């Protein structure tokens, strides 16, 4: 492949144009077995071992639809506010490829599983609605291995383990106007599917794959420009980079008096460019027709209602609840609902501490910092959410200063011990008792008459000296607020 960067438009020129983006997202459903046979979907088995006559497409074999796959697909559709069709059909999409053993993919065409949905994304503090055209089910193809074998210059190897893995394709409307919006859409989509446990959405394993349809038009123009389909967007970062590249490329073509050709382009992450594929490779007439080996898929209201009721709280609902019931800022709610595990951790800590705002601060601050430093996910936190909650409760009651709490938390993280245990073992309790502090303050004032004189003659900055002496005498355990109050009281007299 001759990979050379194209001429790109400058920022000022780009400003005259509006990008139009639609995404096609393929998601592998988290079923135990394949969509049309009983073979396992497990990843990493030796090549061509998770196969049977059905997924090998052997003569005479017939597909049988996996009910669990339909359940997961329908839940995904509901989570995207789609209308799930009472009757939908599977259809054959015909094309030749060595890793497609039947010579057709079983997909859905004229009557997909679900249609007319949407996803609301937040962009610059405003909500924008992105339409979801359709959600349909299909089987995955196998994998062609062009490299890594002794005789790879002469042969391509085919691994059919993935063949027949259950997929859904989620097609958006061309409603996105920037790479940021596309990024936000994909983020929200992924989050919802992960909440539902419909898919792991693991991009490295190919469980989430994204293609983008991109065109540009002069701002204010009504007609869409010719679009390019950009494939191979294997990470969120690549999605953004590929879109930005492709937008600038198309604008430059138009500015140069050329026309954008309708084509498929591959993103080359190494060089951060998009490369046109030879037209032969995508000039397909798929000759779709209803799959005669499978009956029409009928979905009853009761069945669908059952699925709806079994659905967990989705990220949007959770965010709204966190803002409303815990008084969190929108931004904090968004961070804390990134995954269900994180959200659950926060909620538990918030409940035990009785101080959700502090819990939010601590989870996002100290906890995340320590976890990130060790590369641990929230599920492996050595500090249980209840333990964090108890620590914060001690702070609220004034038994620990914020500074001490940080030290205690670091010990908790290192040892897994409870806050109270560490506080007691190390004598770190904060002294808030007024009588106890008063004795020490009196002692400090008595031993430093010169400084008392200075203070009284107007040099009030000396107060800090007294606070320091009191803290020294208490090994930092005196409640600083109480010390301040007492000093003012005594010196002002």
């Amino acid at each position, binding site marked *: 492949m001759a990979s050379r960067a194209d001429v790109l438009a400058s920022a000022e020129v780009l400003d005259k144009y509006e990008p139009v983006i639609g995404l096609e997202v393929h998601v592998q459903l988290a079923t135990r077995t394949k969509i049309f046979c009983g073979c396992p979907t497990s990843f990493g088995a030796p090549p061509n071992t998770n196969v049977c*006559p059905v997924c090998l*497409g*052997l*003569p*005479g*074999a*017939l*597909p*049988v*639809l996996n009910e669990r796959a339909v359940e997961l697909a329908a839940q995904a559709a509901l989570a995207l506010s789609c209308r799930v069709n009472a009757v939908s059909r599977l259809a*054959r999409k*015909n094309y*030749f490829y*060595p890793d497609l*053993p*039947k*010579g*057709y993919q079983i997909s859905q065409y004229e009557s997909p599983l679900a249609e007319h949905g949407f996803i609301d994304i937040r962009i610059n503090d405003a909500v924008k609605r992105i339409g979801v055209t359709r959600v349909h089910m299909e089987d995955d193809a196998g994998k062609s291995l062009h490299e890594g074998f002794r005789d790879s210059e002469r042969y391509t190897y*085919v691994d059919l383990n993935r063949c027949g893995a259950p997929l859904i394709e989620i097609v958006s409307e061309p409603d996105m106007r920037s790479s940021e919006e596309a990024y936000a859409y994909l983020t929200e989509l992924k989050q919802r599917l992960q909440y539902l446990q419909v898919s792991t959405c693991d991009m490295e394993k190919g469980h989430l794959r994204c293609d983008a349809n991109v065109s540009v038009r002069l701002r204010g123009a009504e007609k869409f420009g010719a679009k390019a389909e950009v494939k191979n967007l294997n990470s969120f970062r690549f999605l953004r980079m590929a879109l930005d590249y492709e937008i600038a490329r198309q604008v430059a073509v138009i500015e140069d008096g050329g026309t954008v050709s309708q084509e498929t382009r591959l993103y080359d992450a190494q060089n951060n460019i998009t490369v046109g594929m030879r037209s032969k490779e995508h000039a397909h*007439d798929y*000759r*779709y*027709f209803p799959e*005669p*080996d*499978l*009956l029409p898929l009928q979905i009853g209201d009761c069945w669908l209602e059952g699925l709806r009721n079994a659905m967990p709280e989705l990220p949007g609902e959770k965010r709204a609840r966190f803002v409303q019931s815990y008084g969190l800022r929108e931004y904090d709610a968004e961070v804390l609902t990134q995954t269900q595990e994180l959200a659950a951790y926060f909620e538990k800590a918030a409940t035990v501490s009785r101080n959700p705002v502090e819990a939010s601060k601590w989870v996002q601050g100290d906890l995340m910092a320590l976890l990130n430093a060790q590369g641990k996910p929230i599920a492996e936190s050595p500090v249980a959410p209840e333990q964090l909650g108890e620590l914060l409760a001690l702070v609220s009651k004034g038994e620990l200063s914020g500074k001490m709490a940080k030290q205690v938390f670091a010990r908790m993280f290192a040892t897994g011990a409870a806050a109270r245990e560490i506080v007691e073992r190390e004598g770190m309790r904060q002294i808030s008792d007024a009588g106890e502090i008063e004795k020490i303050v009196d002692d400090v004032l008595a031993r430093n008459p010169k400084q008392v004189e200075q203070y009284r003659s107007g040099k009030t900055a000396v107060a800090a000296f007294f606070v320091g002496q009191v803290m020294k005498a208490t090994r930092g355990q005196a409640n600083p607020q109480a010390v301040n109050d007492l000093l003012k009281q005594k010196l002002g007299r």
Partner: protein
Amino acid sequence: MDIAQLTLDRIREDLIARRYSAAELATEALRLAEAENPKTNAYIHFCPERALDAARRVDGKIANGEDPGALAGAAVAVKDVIVTKDVRTTCGSRLLANYIPPYDATAVIRMERAGAMILGKANCDEFAMGSSNENSAFGAVRNPVDPERVPGGSSGGPAAAVAQGTAVVSLGSDTGGSIRQPASFCGVVGVTPTYGRVSRYGLVAFASSLDHIGPFARTVSDAAALLHAIAGRDEMDSTSAFAPVPDYRAGMNGGLRGVKLGLPREYFKGLASETGNRIEAGVGLLKKLGCEVREISLPATDYAIACYYIICTAEASSNLARYDGVRYTTRSASPPNLIDMYRASRGEGFGAECKRRIMLGTYVLSAGYYDAYYLKAQKVRALIARDFQQAFEKVDAIVTPVSPFPAFKIGEKIDDPMEMYLSDIYTITGDLAGIPCMSVPCGKTAAGLPVGMQILTNHFDEPGMFRIADAYERAGGFAGA
């Protein structure tokens, strides 16, 4: 033992009475089939080990006093489009000349469980496409009645095997008449059951929405017994029916009083006169047996051929895509690149009829033509099915000829595909409607060529169909009334 004279019941009786063993029967049947095969080419290859294994299982059951099954000791031929584990399954195609499937078709499993012994794989038109069995990569099949003539197709091999007396019963497949037409040409009974009655799992697909597995036999009773053994819901085929399978033979009592028969006028135009006379005589006999006969009309019949050849070729173009030279199919020697490898392997591998149908089917599914052809054909198919539904409100069964003419000479029509397609005119409607239908012998022409009469009933009314056929057989109808 004379295999040509044996029936399933007789074999069972003989085995239980220890007149001979299943192993002896299998050995003799294999010897006879191999000896006779050069005359007809009914078998592509034999599987003696498998037959003898099955025979030993039957003998073991009898020795233990267990029920050996309804098909115990039945020497059967299986059309080579039905897969058999570890036994080569060629579909009559060069592309699958060396293909050995790793699994058995559901019908094969059920048949063997009932005690059947598979002698070998029967010849057929390539991928079941043809009406004369001249499209086999393994040579044409000759009609046992007259070796100059075709046995019909595409199940020519299974029909010939039963007709020549090397198999007691056989399994064929029918998409547009591929069981009934060869049954009529060879003078045996051939049954196409209701769509979904027999699992298609393991039947190599030609046109999925029309493909059926069904039995050949020399008697109606044997055909019913074989169908009973293989019918019923199969988890491996989503289109297989849940409806229970009745005992077809229980209803066969010879009485047909008050049974209402319809003769569709569209099926009696342009009939060769000898064929017409035989059918007329057959209908006369049915009347004598107590049937009430009336003329009916199935007006959509005129569109059936066009409708059928659009739907079946469309589905075939997709079903045959997998024979691409990549894996189990014969690959063309040293292809320079992928696309050329596909072209060369398929170009060299497929015979003319398969190519013709793949091209037709690809065309009718193409963007811009789909609505005008495929979609329109589906609408016509619904009209044809409706015609039958309306007819069955008035009559219990419909009687028609199977083919406009008896067996023709080898080579006579092979260069005229249109003429060949028209020979399916009376059989494709049953497949399009998905209703049960069968061919029973109704005498011979002056030249001694068998003529077949078709009986069609409503969905899942195989019992009604078998009752008429059986009564007709008992009254001597097979020999001609």
